[in-house]
């Protein structure tokens, strides 16, 4: 997670007092990461931009209620996360059944599948391939993989962002990775 900007406290005070310019400067260091978070969850750049901007506007309006108990970055990403979840609920999106054909145990990998997996990891398009797998995870598990594995948040930060206990985050992340692994191993060449 990005280190707090040196004058973040001063910007925070000014922004809470209604200074829009201060708010823009306050969120500037986090915008790209917040957009990346939204994009890796939503999978679509336009949708990610909408979600991210919605969240940042909400953050601006909610700022008077921020009391500093959590880090500002964690608080901000909490808003991006819940905006994404709100969007999913609003669309009442139901993933196609084939997206999660094996919500039980992922299959044990055979040697050929493992070899194919490592071949794909060496390709230039590996990130798109990984994100294609991530997109097939349920939204809440997808968020955990994005926050931890793509963006490097700590378990404590993820717990604060998603509103779950750190131990629960770790357990569910394990589950998410197992599902993702199963999907990536099942894919053909």
């Amino acid at each position, binding site marked *: 997670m990005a280190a707090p900007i040196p004058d973040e406290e001063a910007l925070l005070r000014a922004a809470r007092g209604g200074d829009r310019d201060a708010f823009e400067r306050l969120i500037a260091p986090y915008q790209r990461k917040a957009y990346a978070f939204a994009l890796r969850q939503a999978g679509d750049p336009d949708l990610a931009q909408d979600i991210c901007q919605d969240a940042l506007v909400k953050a601006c*309006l909610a700022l008077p209620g921020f009391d500093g108990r959590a880090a500002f970055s964690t608080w901000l990403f909490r808003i991006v996360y819940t905006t994404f979840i709100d969007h999913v609920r609003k669309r009442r999106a139901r993933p196609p059944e084939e997206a999660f054909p094996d919500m039980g145990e992922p299959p*044990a990998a055979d040697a050929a599948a493992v070899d194919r997996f490592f071949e794909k*990891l060496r390709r230039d398009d590996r990130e798109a391939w990984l994100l294609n797998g991530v997109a097939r995870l349920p939204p809440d598990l997808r968020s955990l993989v994005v926050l931890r594995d793509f963006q490097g948040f700590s378990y404590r930060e993820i717990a604060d962002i998603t509103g779950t206990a750190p131990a629960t985050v770790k357990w569910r992340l394990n589950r998410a990775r197992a599902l993702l692994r199963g999907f990536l191993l099942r894919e053909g060449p």
Partner: protein
Amino acid sequence: MNPDCRHVHDRLAGYLERDLAPPERAEVEAHLASCGPCRAAARVTGAMVAAMGSAVEPPLPEGFSDGLRARLAALDTPRPARPARPARWGSRRWPVPGLIGVAAALGLALAFVLTAPWQRSGTAPAPGPSDAPVPMTAAVGEPVHVDLGGDAVAHIWFDAAEPIDGVRFTLEIPAGVRVMEGGEAVAVSTLSWEGSLAAGRNVIKLPLRGVARGTWTVTAKVEKDGDERAQTVGLVVNGA
């Protein structure tokens, strides 16, 4: 999957991040040394996580900052005076940024007046075993804590940029809590009513009593014309 493999799979995250206590790590390593499929799973997972961690962060799309600035500026644009009437429901988005529950974790007490009586629907099922927690995701901020048999107030709020009439409020009450009404603990699974959102912050103060140990979630929904927003507040009922 046999129990030994399940045991190792459940600890893969800790193993790969070197976060296991030494005895547990030794246990996992002993199993991996003798189990080909688990060894492959660990190897694949480690490589997968490393690849994700090395992914390049996508740049902001062109126009993102300008678009955001325009939206922020619109928040400050004074509206011309007009006769008081319900605001037209937002086109694609509410004029209501509903994401306030983060601060609800702080338990700030603010006044809110319900504009219509609550309507109850359904009764709460009998609570499950008192030592069976129900972990919920997407709870807002830190949960409210209450002792078994004790009372607490959950705060959930929504902001509105302007007044909105004809809004349906729904509260979903979990089995482990009762709503306090007139000094009486009432078992109810859903409360709903028609009301309005005032411009600014609207806070629902919900007096509750914890009747079963565990972690529970109250969900508050606000809906108009098929468009819905939801917030949640976690409640932890601590055993005596």
